[in-house]
């Protein structure tokens, strides 16, 4: 098995090298081996993508002669180390993962991103078959500030609704078609099978908005008023906040306010809960648990009953080159290779949803998705995320992490019974206005 994988990798590397050689022969100066012998330092967040990169890095070295030295940290440590290195203007770091929908504006203003636009436009630096336009327009826009392209996408993701089909069938509950059906289903499960856990979702305030936003949007709410001012106290937004908090408080596990995706995934994987709204990224982890690939259903969060709106959160991690790097061209080769059609095709099997349209619609991805009904459902949900999703799920501000923290704080206040949904929303609006 190992040998076959090595041969496959070697063949892929040879094919990519051949592409490079062909391009060179056709008179273009692009050369995959232009920086042969160099080492690029990369820093990644712990993510299915980065874990897969670690395994595939040998292919990159075989193709380019460049050694990729990777550091992978959990998200908090990753951000702390990145801030320290970049604030110190360290030239040691060449490329890093970044969530442009979260920190893009701040990092761009700080001058931490190298501009990729000139490299993309330079035929000597960019492989002829790279095809940047293959990434969807909205995905590209999320990493473009003014005329500066700050990063290239490595995945696409968003929260999805996972539910235990077998539990629903056993208790005679229909598949939820509207957001309000979730509450009805929760009530029924709790009443008919008290030993079955019902619901789990993120409770730590900084990570709540990712899972919460769909509830707000689908209820017809929004985080901002039409004039851009904070709008959590709008009636439909309050209804969304209330529903999320009610599910967590009345049907969630004890201690839910300290939970993030790790606990939620574990609870769903172990079969302790019947429903959740958690990241599409966790699909691979969840379906690794026994029986979950067979008994789970997955789709985008159902629309609100009255609003009919379905507007999920859709974001994507990206990879950027440090503005302080002295090996930007070598790093650019890594970025091209890592986001190439060939590599993205391989990453699908690691549960990484490809941001390239050609991979998403390609035969390899389709063959993989067709192997199991749940994979097809997951793929369909991702298509819908890409079609209808938004990466903006806070009030307008550059200080996005703080804004999301305040929004998550509203849910914590409601769940703890320290404020009514309306009072908590009003208080948060006052604080959010200070960030604008």
């Amino acid at each position: 098995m190992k040998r076959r994988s090595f041969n496959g990798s070697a063949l892929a590397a040879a094919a990519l090298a051949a592409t490079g050689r062909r391009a060179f022969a056709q008179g273009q100066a692009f050369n995959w081996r232009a920086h042969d012998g160099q080492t690029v330092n990369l820093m990644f967040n712990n993510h299915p993508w980065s874990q897969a990169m670690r395994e595939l890095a040998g292919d990159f070295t075989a193709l380019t002669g460049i050694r990729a030295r990777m550091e992978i940290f959990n998200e908090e440590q990753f951000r702390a180390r990145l801030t320290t290195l970049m604030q110190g203007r360290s030239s040691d770091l060449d490329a890093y993962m970044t969530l442009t929908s979260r920190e893009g504006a701040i990092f761009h203003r700080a001058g931490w991103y190298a501009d990729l636009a000139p490299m993309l436009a330079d035929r000597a630096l960019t492989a002829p078959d790279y095809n940047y336009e293959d990434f969807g327009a909205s995905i590209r826009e999320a990493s473009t500030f003014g005329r500066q392209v700050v990063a290239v996408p490595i995945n696409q993701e968003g929260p999805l609704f996972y539910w235990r089909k077998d539990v629903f069938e056993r208790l005679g509950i229909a598949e939820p078609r509207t957001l309000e059906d979730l509450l009805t289903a929760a009530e029924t499960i709790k009443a008919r099978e008290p030993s079955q856990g019902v619901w789990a979702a993120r409770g730590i305030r900084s990570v709540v908005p990712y899972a919460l936003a769909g509830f707000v949007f689908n209820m017809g709410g929004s985080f901002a008023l039409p004039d851009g001012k904070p709008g959590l106290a709008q009636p439909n937004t309050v209804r969304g906040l209330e529903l999320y908090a009610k599910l967590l408080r009345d049907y969630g596990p004890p201690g839910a306010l300290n939970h993030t995706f790790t606990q939620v995934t574990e609870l769903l994987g172990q079969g302790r809960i019947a429903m959740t709204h958690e990241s599409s990224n966790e699909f691979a982890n969840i379906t690794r648990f026994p029986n979950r690939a067979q008994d789970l259903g997955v789709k985008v969060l159902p629309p609100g009953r009255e609003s009919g709106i379905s507007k999920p959160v859709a974001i994507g991690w990206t990879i950027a080159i440090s503005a302080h790097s002295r090996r930007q061209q070598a790093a650019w080769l890594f970025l091209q290779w890592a986001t190439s059609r060939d590599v993205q095709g391989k990453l699908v099997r690691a549960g990484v949803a490809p941001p390239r349209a050609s991979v998403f619609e390609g035969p390899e991805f389709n063959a993989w998705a067709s192997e199991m009904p749940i994979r097809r459902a997951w793929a369909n949900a991702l298509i819908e995320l890409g079609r209808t999703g938004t990466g903006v799920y806070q009030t307008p501000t550059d200080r996005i992490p703080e804004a999301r923290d305040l929004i998550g704080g509203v849910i914590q206040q409601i769940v703890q019974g320290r404020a009514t949904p309306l009072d908590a929303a009003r208080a948060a609006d006052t604080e959010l206005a200070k960030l604008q």
Partner: protein
Amino acid sequence: MARARLSSSFHWMAAPAVIFAAGMIVFPFGYAIWLSLSDVALGADPRFIGLGNFARLLADEEFWNGLRLTLFLYVVSLSLQLVLGTWLGLLLARSRSAQGLVRTIMVSPFMLPPVVVGMMAIVILDPSFGIANWLLEQAGLPPGLWLSDPDTVMLTIAALDTWQWTPFVALIVMGGYLSLPQDVFEAAEIDGANGWWRFRRVTLPLLAPTLITAAVLRSVDILRFFDIIYLTTQGGPGTASTTLNILAYRRGFEFFDLGYASAIMVTLSAIVFGSVLVFTRLRRAVTW
């Protein structure tokens, strides 16, 4: 003359180490003070704003909440560790059976990296699938929310710190007790002093310098306690465990407000220095 030359060359030889140590301590701390007096926008050079960040502290409810929690943790953990550590240390000093084994077991909690303790706490104290609640259930007691309840989270964290570090205090106390002149205890016994009287009037005064040393060491650690809180609660639920360390970390690395985060840390450092100073003076007063 030769003696003076020897002394002079000794100073020269020690100089690199002194300069290195000073650089490693003075520079980072000086830089933190400079940052605390600056507005630090990411990617830009710090801009001096005087005491602006400290003025912000005074008006920041989260800072006062953090200070209250930090001091609560300090008082509860230190008191518990000193009381339990003294009791355990004296017990160990007088115990004659299986001394090696008992002392090895005692040492093990504080040999554990904080990450391990934090992960253990997450697994054991999880209200859904933790063993702590299962044990309570078996004993017919109501389950606890431990780290998930704003009313109990700080007590739980204090208990975790106490579990890990009481043996450390106990070992210091045991060492101190064993080094005391035993004839004083014998004299007190001959004079008819009972156990409690002996402890209060003889053991405790003699052990006071040792206890203050333990208190200084633990004070510094408790006041800068960060890792286990961050691992288990990230400062939550809500802000119920957002001590000054957690607040500074979040401000600095999550919200990129490095000047303000430095002001918080400089304030905390002043509290640490203050507590060490108090204990040092106290130690002088009780030295016999």
